């Protein structure tokens, strides 16, 4: 009896797990805003990557130079990527 009950519970949990309830965003994103930001994000995303990449390059270069003059190198600056 308990084994059957356990199996029923496990089965029920499995079903629930397979079909998680979704809270659909209630907010109207606005059709124009939706498409516009895809375009904009593609553009600024590239700029963002370049900026992050450039910071890493600068930090690496700085650490190279400080090693050359024998001072302890600073850790790579904390890049918010």
């Amino acid at each position, binding site marked *: 009896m308990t084994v059957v009950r356990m199996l029923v519970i496990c089965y029920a949990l499995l079903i629930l797990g397979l079909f998680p309830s979704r*809270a659909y965003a209630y907010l109207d994103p606005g059709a124009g805003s939706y498409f516009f930001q895809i375009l904009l994000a593609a553009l600024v995303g590239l700029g963002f*990557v370049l900026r992050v990449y450039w910071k890493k390059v600068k930090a690496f270069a700085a650490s190279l130079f400080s090693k050359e003059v024998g001072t302890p190198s600073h850790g790579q600056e904390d890049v918010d990527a």
Partner: protein
Amino acid sequence: MPDMGARVAGSFRDPSGFVFTDGGRIYRQINRAYQDHYLQLMSSGLYDKLVGDGLLIPHTEVGTQLAATADAYKVIEPVRIPFVSYPYEWCFSQLKQAALLTLRLQRTALDFGMSLKDASAYNVQFHEGRPVLIDSLSFEAYEEGKPWVAYRQFCQHFYAPLALMAQADVRLHQLLRANLDGIPLDMASRLLPARTWFSFPSLSHIHLHARAQKHWADGTSRSDRGGMGRTSFLGLVDSLRSGIEKLRWQPGGTEWHDYYAIQGYTSEAMEHKQGLVADMLNRIVPRPKTAWDLGANTGRFSRIASDIGVFTVSVDSDPSAVESSYLESLEKREANILPLVVDLANPSPGLGWENRERSSLLARGPADVVFALALLHHLAISENLPFRDIASFLHQACSVLIIEYVPKEDAQVQRLLAHRKDIFTEYTQESFEEQFGEFFTIQDSVAIVGTNRTLYQMARRGT
């Protein structure tokens, strides 16, 4: 189980849950539809991170027996905000900080696989002097590839009003009173000066965004055209962040900002007045928990109350004065003062659906004590309000009133009367005491040294 009448008037749009009151306490019901997102918020570490950084209001879970409807998954009790304020009452920096908070929340959420599903300025409140997110149900699981559903709302609630305040006129925050879902972008685009077309953030997030909205107004087709990867998403959020950071506004130069420099209190008189206000405040029994300082200017007297632990709402109609006061509160890390921009002759009304979504100023009171210092003559003379009407208003706002009577001979009143006919025959101290006496019992009155003004302490009559 409380009935649906307990639901807070402004809380109805989100099917994930809603806010309701029960026994004088505030709760948030989480519906079953939101269950997975809530579990992710709590178990992923996002909740702990945001609460730890002071960005999200903490809550405790309480039993579902308190739930208001049958589809409740859970009920939580968030820490209570002492005074609810609205974006149309905030000074420039308060709105800017609220905007940067929202972007920081979004940025952090992505690290935990979540994203904000809305970006409403009404989800932010000031708690202990800093903006916090109060809607714990704003987070949803992030689906890579999908754009930010809240982008439009962020631009309307935050970007547009801030750009207008910084680049057109600081008073344009008043447009938020008429537009409860933020300023329409086509309107903002039209009002912003031409030079903003040459700034990439304004160009993209306002001008081009507004045109895109119009162009794709009936975007029923091509619903799967392109997507937005995580890096692009981060780029968008970062672009908004840097755009907002660059918006700056300098307070000062307005009539009220340099008030203390020109209004002629000697330092002796100022010290005496400050001492009197402190004495009167300390004499109030029971000890007041909340104070409203009306016509507070930069909050010099508000701080007499807030410094001793009384939560003080510091109200003035001048955006410069409120801005200075808020910046001071940030610098000194003050937790008990909330400066707000409100015109007492036209204070925030009830707005939104049934005029109840956003409450009027008086509905958010009364306060235990109100300061009406150097205010009376502005209401009586500039606004032509009889003393009785002023007393009636203040009667609704407080239990104890500390008010400064400014006689007609005072230099400030003479300035107000300089270019107009003196029709104020009832403006006398006897008349003041008589008319206020209908609403208040006068407990004490003291002449302020070095001036011709009198400070009164009064207690309201009746319930």
